[in-house]
């Protein structure tokens, strides 16, 4: 657990906003993520979390800086870097089993690795739903399928952009445990964007905190107490307080004087 899998060095990504002005979604961002590590990225809306994840995925490219996976420059997408979108990314015209198999089909290895589909359906606990279509399953189930679809390619890194953002808290807790289970099963490096502080602490080895305008990394906090982590435990709550303070959300801001 010391080899760096993902290395982001001095990455800048500038978009053009609706008025045509430059918008610095990321400025000079650097971060290294170790092989097999579970990293959560947290930060206010618009601070460039998705932008960073898309750059690592190769769905987008930076204006400055470079990104590497195992020493190789990232350019373009690759099944080595799996991506799980927030919601509604399953192909509606394919059944659950075929959505999961899509990764194998896309790489042209379906015939050789057909058996993996059943394995992943079992891993995500969706036996009996193989033939259901996406509109017939719940949001939580759909996200499990999306995760399995990315994992069946045995990626080096799995990038997850708020995969549980649209789920209720019970389903969410359930899926968090599932994710840990899959992480242990495959040893995949996980990079998870979330806006749920508890989720970040519950899952990650390190929490990366980002701040907006321009988007940059403001803190990296290691979470070193052992799993399974008790959400009400002393260490957990202390860590929560630390992160809230870093995010500047710990105390209510004073009201401006001119409010009515």
């Amino acid at each position, binding site marked *: 657990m010391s080899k760096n899998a993902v290395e982001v060095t001095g990455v800048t990504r500038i978009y053009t906003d609706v008025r045509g002005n430059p918008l610095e979604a990321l400025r000079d961002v650097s971060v290294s993520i170790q092989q097999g590590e579970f990293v959560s990225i947290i930060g206010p809306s618009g601070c460039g979390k998705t932008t960073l994840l898309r750059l690592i995925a190769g769905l987008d490219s930076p204006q400055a800086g470079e990104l590497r996976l195992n020493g190789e420059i990232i350019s373009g*997408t690759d099944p080595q870097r799996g991506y799980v979108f927030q919601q509604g990314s399953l192909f509606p015209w394919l059944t659950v089993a075929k959505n999961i198999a899509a*990764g194998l089909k896309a790489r042209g290895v379906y015939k050789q690795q057909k058996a993996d589909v059943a394995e992943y359906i079992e891993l995500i606990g969706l036996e009996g739903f193989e033939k259901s*279509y996406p*509109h017939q399953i719940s949001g939580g189930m759909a996200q499990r399928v999306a995760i399995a*679809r990315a994992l069946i390619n045995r990626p080096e890194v799995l990038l997850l952009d708020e995969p549980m953002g649209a789920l209720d808290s019970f389903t969410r807790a359930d899926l968090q445990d599932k994710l840990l289970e899959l992480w242990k099963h495959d040893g995949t490096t996980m990079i998870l964007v979330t806006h749920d502080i508890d989720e970040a602490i519950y899952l990650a080895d390190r929490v990366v905190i980002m701040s907006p305008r321009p988007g940059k990394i403001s803190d990296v906090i290691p979470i070193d107490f052992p799993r399974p982590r008790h959400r009400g435990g002393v260490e957990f709550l202390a860590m929560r307080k630390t992160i809230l303070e870093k995010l500047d959300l710990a105390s209510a801001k004073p009201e401006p004087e001119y409010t009515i």
Partner: protein
Amino acid sequence: MKISNTKFLIRTVLTLLGFALAEVGSFAIPTLQNQTFVIRDEAYRAILAGLMVIYLGSGIFSWFSETRRVKYAKRAPFRLFIGLVLLVWDMLGTKFGKLHMPFFPGPSQITWVFVEEWEFLLSNLLYSLRLYAFGFFSGVFLGVGTGILIGWFSKANYWIMPVLKMTGVIPAVAWMPFALNIFPSSFLAGCFLVSMCAWFPIGFQTARGMQATQKVYFEVARTIGGGRFYQLFHVAIPNALPTIFTGVSTANGLAFTTLVMTEMMGARGGLGYYINWAKAWSSYYKVYAAIIIMAILFSIILKIIGAIQNRALIWQRGLTSNVEERG
């Protein structure tokens, strides 16, 4: 909703009553014979008897299922009405000669055509069917092909889309004089016209459906290792299936019209040709017979296409349950 046994029996009797009355009427009252030819009632009577057997059978079949009972009972008043209409029509047309001849013949005269001229009718029916099959399927093929080109390659979109839009608004039959001269047979000319009329809506809808694919599906395809080929055949085209079927339905309606028009104007066979031929002899009862066959044929084709569509679009939200409701 539940239907009691007595109520269902009453509904069954109602269903059959209209046709039974029509049958009784046909037997009880003597047919007014024409001076020029003999009117035969046998075919009409046999069809009435056949309808009664079918509806009795479907009544017995429906007895055992709640949902089928409801459906059957719901349709009873309409079937009774049809039977009564036949009765009245038969009385006015065949029995008392109150309808304006030869434009409005009675049901006996029309149905006897099926017996008298079945071979000629069948050969024309097969001609129409063949023309439809070749013309329509080549149109679907061309349309989907063009649509894929336009939907996938921006160059094709630039060069072909305007052509498709310009030629697409022209009704296919306008090409008739040209088609009849260019093609070696009137059958091929007909195929060309039917194909043309299907080409535009299907091509247009295919392209539209592909271009409307959500970006996230392409991004998923890219992250799981799918290249251009995968993105085209496993993302863009499946995404276009619903609109392709919208195009196919539109094209189908146009194809029926074009088919009959080309047959009436240039062909040497087909139901349209038969209608023209019968009209030339002032045998309007034969025109009606051909129209009835056309109605049945086109309905069957629509049913088949509908079934294919439901199978292909089974993944769409809500579609299956809607179909169940509609029956």
